[in-house]
């Protein structure tokens, strides 16, 4: 089976500044890939490039194939149907990703209605409502019948992120892109959301592109990691291998930093 995402020698420029330099990355169906690096390393930009959402001022060269479709230079009209069918994205801050003026159930109904129309069905209100409840149950939102009528500000950060995940699932994407989805959450909530993501990806056979600066978080949900620094991929490999025997100096410094906090928790710092 061909790759869902195939990025080959992608370079992105803002004027004279190179933001991404010869980045190559592929994701096969069902594969779980972590994109790690510090701020400014280009990890989010790589994900945006993969779905054709580069800001207008940026120039891209190289190749980005999304489900076999060339993204670079393509019209938005061509790409629109791919976002949603092939990929769906969950971002860091659920409060800004959700519409503050709409009850969360209706926000999930929107992508759901689009997908059902796409599949040739004009769903009834009752059918949509039922499917929204199913999705909310899948993301383990407590008391979904009541909460679907709530507005985003009436939910906790973890509950909002569950709603954002439900919206992504409503599209039935082949690839779920999660960009720092737990960074804004409390640590106990983070643990729950990570378990949820791992389960949903496995249950639905989705591929996952998980973007984070937090190494141990990435290790919980992916099989393979891609390490970026200053717009360049410096290392890639199975997560256990890269984190236990990093080859690149930069990866080594990241792993050492993450392990130093682990050791402090063990009381051996």
């Amino acid at each position, binding site marked *: 089976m061909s790759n869902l995402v195939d990025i080959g020698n992608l370079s992105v420029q803002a004027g004279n500044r190179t933001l991404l330099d010869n980045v190559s990355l592929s994701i096969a169906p069902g594969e779980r890939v972590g994109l790690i690096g510090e701020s400014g390393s280009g990890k989010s930009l790589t994900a945006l490039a993969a779905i054709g959402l580069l800001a207008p001022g940026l120039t891209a060269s190289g190749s980005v194939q999304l489900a076999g479709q060339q993204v670079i230079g393509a019209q938005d009209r061509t790409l629109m149907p791919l976002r949603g069918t092939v990929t769906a994205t969950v971002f860091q801050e659920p409060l800004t990703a959700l519409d503050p003026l709409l009850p969360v159930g209706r926000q999930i109904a929107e992508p759901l209605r689009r997908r059902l129309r796409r599949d040739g069905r004009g769903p009834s209100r009752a059918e949509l409502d039922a499917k929204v409840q199913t999705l909310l149950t899948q993301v383990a939102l407590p008391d979904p019948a009541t909460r679907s009528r709530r507005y985003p500000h009436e939910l906790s950060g973890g509950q909002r992120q569950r709603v954002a995940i439900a919206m992504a699932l409503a599209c039935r994407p082949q690839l779920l892109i999660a960009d720092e989805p737990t960074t804004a959450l409390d*640590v106990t909530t983070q643990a729950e959301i990570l378990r949820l993501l791992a389960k949903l990806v496995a249950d639905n056979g989705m591929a996952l592109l998980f973007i984070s600066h937090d*190494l141990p978080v990435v290790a919980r949900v992916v099989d393979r990691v891609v390490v970026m620094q200053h717009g360049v991929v410096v290392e890639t490999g199975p997560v256990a291998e890269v984190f236990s025997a990093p080859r690149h100096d930069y990866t080594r410094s990241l792993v050492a930093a993450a392990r130093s906090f682990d050791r402090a928790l063990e009381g051996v710092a």
Partner: protein
Amino acid sequence: MSLLDVNGVDFSYGRGKPVLQQVSFAVEAGASLGIVGESGSGKTTLLRLLLGLTRPDAGTIALNGAAIDTRDSSFMRGYRRQVQAVFQDPYSSLDPRQSVFDIIAEPLRSLRIAGDHVALVAGALDAVGLDATSLRRYPHQFSGGQRQRIAIARAIVARPQVLLADEAVSALDLTTRVRIVALLQALSKDMTLVFVSHDLGVVAAACRDIVVLERGRIVESGRTRDVLARPKHPYTQALLASVPRMPEGLS
């Protein structure tokens, strides 16, 4: 008598539900204390009380035995000299229009501290590991980690007894975080560090003592090493179990 004494503090906003209830702890001179909790634990409110920005509904906060009185402005000036803070976001906590020298010298001016300001600022800058050429530059010319060093220099320039750090490394990259924690640790040899954070790993690395807050109450406290090795309260146990760790090595 401890350096900082928090005794039976209650607090709520207006007639809302209590944010802090019967919070008591003491910090000895030269100690380092981490205050850990998740959102809604009351840690930010506690920090505001420690800074003297709000008054507790009940209980007292005392420095060297003298209770804070937020209405007594000359007392508060003395208090601010002794208790300085570093905040989370190094991008919003520095005035973009001031040079680094003016930013660091600001507490000396506002607290009307006599002496050679140039020498004091140079000393603070040196203590945080920035070189003297930084003084004429402006915040936007520095990275996040360097900005946090500037914020720390500003906090220590008046030689306070207590340095309050509010999530002071949360916005920083991992490798930068390690370096700023090491800096705070080094500084805590000469002053008392109170580190408010949601991050157990950071507190474990920086603080000898720990207080765990859950919904406005202290559920556990003690030496950080002991609390983390044998957490007694279910909340501390859950918190510790939730922290993601690096996978065990292959070798």
